[in-house]
């Protein structure tokens, strides 16, 4: 078949939007590597515990501070708990917190940003609210929120689910401001573009202008802040655990493992290397996936 007939075929064949997006995503090498690594981590923390069936809380005082061996592929800590099992158990919590908190922060940030950018009357109040949140000292705020609501939520949802909800909410509510500012700026620029005026002249209603014309065009900055948001959420959760405000001490998360291991860095460096590596790889792979998604969702870059 000649090039011309191939081109003619491509012109008439129906191209679905998501088919195009997937094709472009697959062409992005970094995104594919990132997806593979991320899939590996997700499978590791979900399926892994069924293969490496060691209880992460099992204390084995005879095998304290053990190095890498067949029994303990990642070694053990100072009370003989298996590190691999702990990293896998901690990953579940860290990933769940990261994604859920990112979701909360993106939804709030995008909502505030779009409303402030699109509705002139709301711009002042919403942006001052954003400034207020940015100016708040986060750690004292977290302390107060956690102290006030921890016990209520614990009794309502149980110790683990309650603290999970609280941490996701607290991280989400304190990290949406950057997204809101970026989205507002983009919306302010976009709504003066002629295609928005064209939509108004057609009689498109306000909410449709937002969902059809504004949101798809601010997808790139939202995507970027989402990938950064996951990393930030995982790290903030670690900081909270370190302060004793996060999950209970016997409940491993990647951040908790890092902080527990830091005192034994000279003796058993693998105790900080493994959770640190897991956090870094997750953040890096999510960043690459976000990069690829952003390119794939932009029709101007797609097909290049």
């Amino acid at each position, binding site marked *: 078949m000649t090039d011309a007939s191939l081109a003619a075929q491509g*012109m008439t064949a129906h191209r679905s939007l998501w088919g195009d997006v997937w094709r472009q995503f697959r062409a992005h090498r970094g995104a594919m590597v990132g997806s593979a690594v991320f899939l590996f981590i997700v499978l590791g923390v979900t399926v892994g515990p069924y293969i490496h069936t060691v209880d992460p809380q099992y204390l084995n005082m005879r095998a304290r501070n053990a190095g890498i061996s067949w029994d303990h592929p990642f070694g053990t800590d100072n009370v003989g708990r298996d590190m691999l099992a702990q990293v896998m158990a901690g990953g579940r919590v860290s990933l769940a917190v990261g994604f859920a908190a990112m979701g909360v922060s993106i939804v709030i940030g995008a909502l505030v940003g779009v409303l402030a950018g699109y509705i002139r009357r709301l711009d002042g109040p919403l942006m001052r609210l954003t400034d207020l949140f940015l100016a708040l000292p986060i750690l004292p705020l977290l302390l107060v929120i956690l102290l006030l609501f921890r016990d209520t939520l614990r009794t309502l949802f149980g110790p683990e689910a309650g603290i999970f909800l609280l941490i996701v909410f607290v991280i989400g509510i304190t990290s949406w401001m950057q997204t809101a500012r970026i989205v507002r700026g983009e919306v302010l620029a976009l709504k003066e573009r002629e295609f928005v005026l064209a939509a108004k*002249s057609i009689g498109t209603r306000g909410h449709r202008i937002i969902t059809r014309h504004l949101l*798809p065009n601010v997808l790139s900055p939202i995507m970027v802040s989402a990938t950064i948001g996951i990393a930030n959420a995982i790290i903030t959760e670690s900081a909270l655990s370190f302060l004793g405000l996060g999950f209970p001490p016997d409940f491993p998360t990647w951040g908790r493992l890092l902080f527990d291991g830091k005192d034994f860095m000279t003796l058993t460096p693998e105790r900080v290397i493994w959770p640190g590596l897991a956090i870094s790889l997750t953040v890096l792979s999510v960043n690459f996936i976000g990069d690829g998604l952003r390119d794939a969702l932009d029709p101007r870059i797609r097909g290049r």
Partner: protein
Amino acid sequence: MAFDSPKAGETLVRVADLKVHFPIHAGLIRRQVGTVRAVDGVSFDVARGETLGLVGESGCGKSTTGRAVLRLVDATAGRIEMAGTDIASLGSEALRRMRPRMQMIFQDPHASLNPRMTVGSIVAEPLSEHGTLRGSARQRRVEELLDAVGLNPSFANRYPHEFSGGQRQRIGIARALALDPDFIVCDEPIAALDVSIQAQVVNLLEELQERLGLTYLFISHDLSMVRHIADRVAVMYLGKIVELADREALYGAPKHPYTQALLSAVPIPNPKVEATRRHIILKGDVPSPANPPSGCRFRTRCPIAEARCAAEEPAWRKLDDGRHVACHFAT
């Protein structure tokens, strides 16, 4: 609409004393310190099936007039009648129901199409917004529209960035035509295009007008293109119309000194005539619309201005041959 069959000469759009003022805010508490009188008392009629050209230099309020006529900018004062309904005071839902009858073609074909939407969904947007057609009927209508503006209907799956400026402008025209409008405001539809493409787009507009009985308000700063397409021409200066006349009368014997100066700036493609022709070169700049001169707005640059022009604002007069002029000395 079907029940008001087109009659020649019937007035479709009547604009009376339209004013669009923009407030200027300054200082710490954003107090209003002045107003930009972008459009300041503009009146004109457009008859069904005709093309009214609106010309003037940059910043004189042409585009704002066009947008205010479609209520894309709210008018500060005045009436805008569209087939007898005053749309300047309509509520948003009633205005939305009027939208299909009046559409706009935009200046910049690169900015007027959403880069994230396919051409098909751009053209289908008016149809889905007003719920007139669904499913395969809508798709057929989109193909029909693309065909009508000279584009291959199979382009519906492509994105705007895959097209040239002229093709994009055709997509914009197809979108404007989707709801069978009576009245289209063309806001400098050819200003951003190559000269070779301009003629194609203008011819397409003329052909569509003939076929569909459209009425145009054609905004442009290209005097020769307006002469080609318009039946009547209005000349704007600093928020006001200074002269409105039939095309031949205006280009043949302009009465207002500003129109005369404007037309003398159009080169004539004959070196002998061009060399000997009298050029009127205006001095100075256009005054700020936030602080227009007293009396006649053109007096600061007018070659024939007198003391009276500063004291007294010239009336919008109808001359014997039917044209309108706003100048004390025009006869």
